[in-house]
């Protein structure tokens, strides 16, 4: 591994971490699409900044472009307030326009601006190690490493300083306001960090793929935990893992590094989407099936308790009145029998003592709306998992 390769992986990893932190909050605040809007609309800011500074890594350019990002957010909110269109339409209207302006500005000044549209969309991570920062004649590393590193340090400092405020305002904006932290300041603070990070990362992975690095690791983490700190940690882990793995995929395929980082993220997300222990597709589908049987069994027991008449308790009644398919009623009946909840006598079903006690308890919990206790109860009776 050459030092250039090492530097690329280092830059990609730092970008991933810097994106994952604001990304986690964006996902939790249901504002993921705002990051998409910002990533597009910073383009005119970058072009104008480039005219002025002639340097993609200049702090002034980063600030100018980040300002465009914040303006986008403000503009979207302003349009929403007029009530002329809905919120999502406002987002969808603003960013393509700003992006178009940026593209046209680049096209019209193609001779002066050494900005390539492909670079805007994809970044030029492979060339990042060649743009060195020198201080007093000594080479201290690639410029973009310093830029994104500084952004990351600021982000981490802000995260530590305002962790409590961010947490409260994310989960309960009303409470946050009553505690005295203005949700608006935190909102715009977060938007500013997201914008600055997007601009900083744009050089490496391109405008649109920043979105992937913000949303996908956070979404993966959200499928695995609901604890905010763990979620941040996991998001950072997935981001860094995909960055490094993606680099080697690109190396092997001889294709875009940013593209393969995103593709790796996609594969990671797909795996987690399928296999996440309690929130993944397979777990959810299995649980739904399980719960369907559990609910059916409880319904059935409740029905038996409610009705003393024999007609209502005939085995065939399950098919007729409760309106279940044959297979399901048989599953439920077998399950109840196996757990000694019911007795079947001449095709008439009746509750056993155990079944009766269980059902009474269940009714009690259901009526008082204490679902959590029903969960405990199931374990008491070792009932449903067998």
């Amino acid at each position, binding site marked *: 591994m050459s030092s250039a390769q090492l530097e690329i992986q280092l830059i990609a990893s730092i970008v991933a971490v810097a994106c994952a932190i604001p990304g986690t909050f964006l996902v939790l605040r249901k504002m993921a699409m705002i990051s998409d809007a910002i990533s597009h609309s910073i383009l005119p800011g970058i072009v104008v900044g480039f005219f002025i500074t002639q340097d993609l890594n200049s702090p002034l350019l980063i600030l100018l472009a980040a300002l465009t990002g914040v303006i986008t957010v403000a503009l979207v909110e302003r349009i929403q307030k007029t009530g002329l269109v809905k919120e999502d339409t406002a987002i969808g209207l603003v960013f393509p326009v700003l992006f178009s302006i940026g593209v046209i500005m680049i096209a019209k000044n193609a001779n002066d601006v050494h900005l390539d549209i492909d670079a805007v969309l994809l970044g030029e991570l492979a060339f990042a190690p060649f743009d060195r920062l020198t201080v007093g004649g000594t080479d201290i590393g690639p410029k973009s490493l310093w830029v994104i590193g500084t952004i990351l340090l600021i982000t981490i400092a802000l995260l530590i300083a305002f962790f409590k405020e961010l947490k409260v305002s994310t989960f309960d904006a009303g409470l946050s306001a009553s505690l005295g932290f203005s949700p608006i300041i935190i909102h715009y603070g977060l938007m500013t960090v997201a914008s600055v990070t997007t601009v900083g990362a744009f050089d490496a992975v391109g405008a649109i793929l920043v979105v992937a690095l913000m949303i996908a690791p956070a979404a993966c983490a959200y499928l695995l935990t609901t604890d905010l700190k763990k979620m941040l940690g996991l998001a950072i882990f997935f981001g860094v893992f995909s960055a490094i793995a993606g680099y080697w995929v690109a190396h092997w395929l001889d294709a875009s590094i940013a593209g393969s980082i995103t593709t790796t993220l996609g594969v990671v997300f797909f795996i987690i989407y399928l296999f996440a222990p309690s929130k993944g597709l397979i777990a959810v589908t299995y649980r739904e099936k399980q719960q369907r049987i559990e609910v059916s069994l409880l319904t059935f027991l409740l029905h038996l308790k409610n009705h003393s008449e024999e007609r209502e308790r005939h085995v065939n009644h399950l098919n007729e009145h409760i309106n279940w398919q044959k297979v399901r009623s048989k599953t439920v009946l077998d399950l109840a029998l196996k757990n000694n909840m019911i007795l079947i006598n001449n095709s008439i079903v009746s509750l056993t003592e155990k079944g009766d006690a269980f059902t009474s308890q269940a*009714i009690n919990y259901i009526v008082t709306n204490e679902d959590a206790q029903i969960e405990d109860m199931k374990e008491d009776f070792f009932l449903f998992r067998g």
Partner: protein
Amino acid sequence: MDDNMKESNASTAFAVKVDDLTVAYNYKPVLWDIDLEIPEGVLMAIVGPNGAGKSTLIKAILGILKPIAGSVSIYGKPYKKQRSLVAYVPQKGSVDWDFPTIALDVVMMGTYGSLGWIKRPGAKEKKAALEALEKVGMLPFKNRQISQLSGGQQQRIFLARALVQDASIYFMDEPFQGVDATTEIAIINILKELRKEGKTVVVVHHDLQTVPEYFDWVTFLNVKKIATGPVKDIFNDDNLTKTYGINYKVSVQK
């Protein structure tokens, strides 16, 4: 359940018969083993605390939600075959009132069910819609954009849309939510008129104070059915306490 009720089980005198209905949202149970018979020609309130499953019950009866277990019959036949006999007034907040359409158009939607696929409403449907608008006192507003109507007026438009369906059974989800006093009186008068014509009206209702005044039949619901029957017989402290919890006190005007 008393045996009197059971006797008439097989007969079709009931407008609506709900049998062992269990509904769950994301497999979290909301309604448990509901048996409910609604006689023809009553004006019935469904009452219960928030989260008791009142709207869910209506939606499950109308097939908007798929129940886990149980069946619903309308005049003795499965609901699917009797759709034309049933009209629905959803909660006012369930739609986007900024939708580009006028009051008359919304009321015309009530005729779409009987028209079926593809066929367009014609003069006959328009006439029916205008009559319904007249009945709810909204004829002068027929060309208004729906967002420019007040909450009460929007509710009346929804009521008119159901009236156009010319059904035998009306299900209404909180029709008195956020309406002015005049509209509330206008609506209840129309409901009473419907009852006079022998129609059955089922209303999800919030305001317990007005139950004895507005309705003649009531169902107490809190996840499971607590009681159902004539208001004068069962609207009492005992059932209210069972439904709303131990500390509930309400002065019931008999």
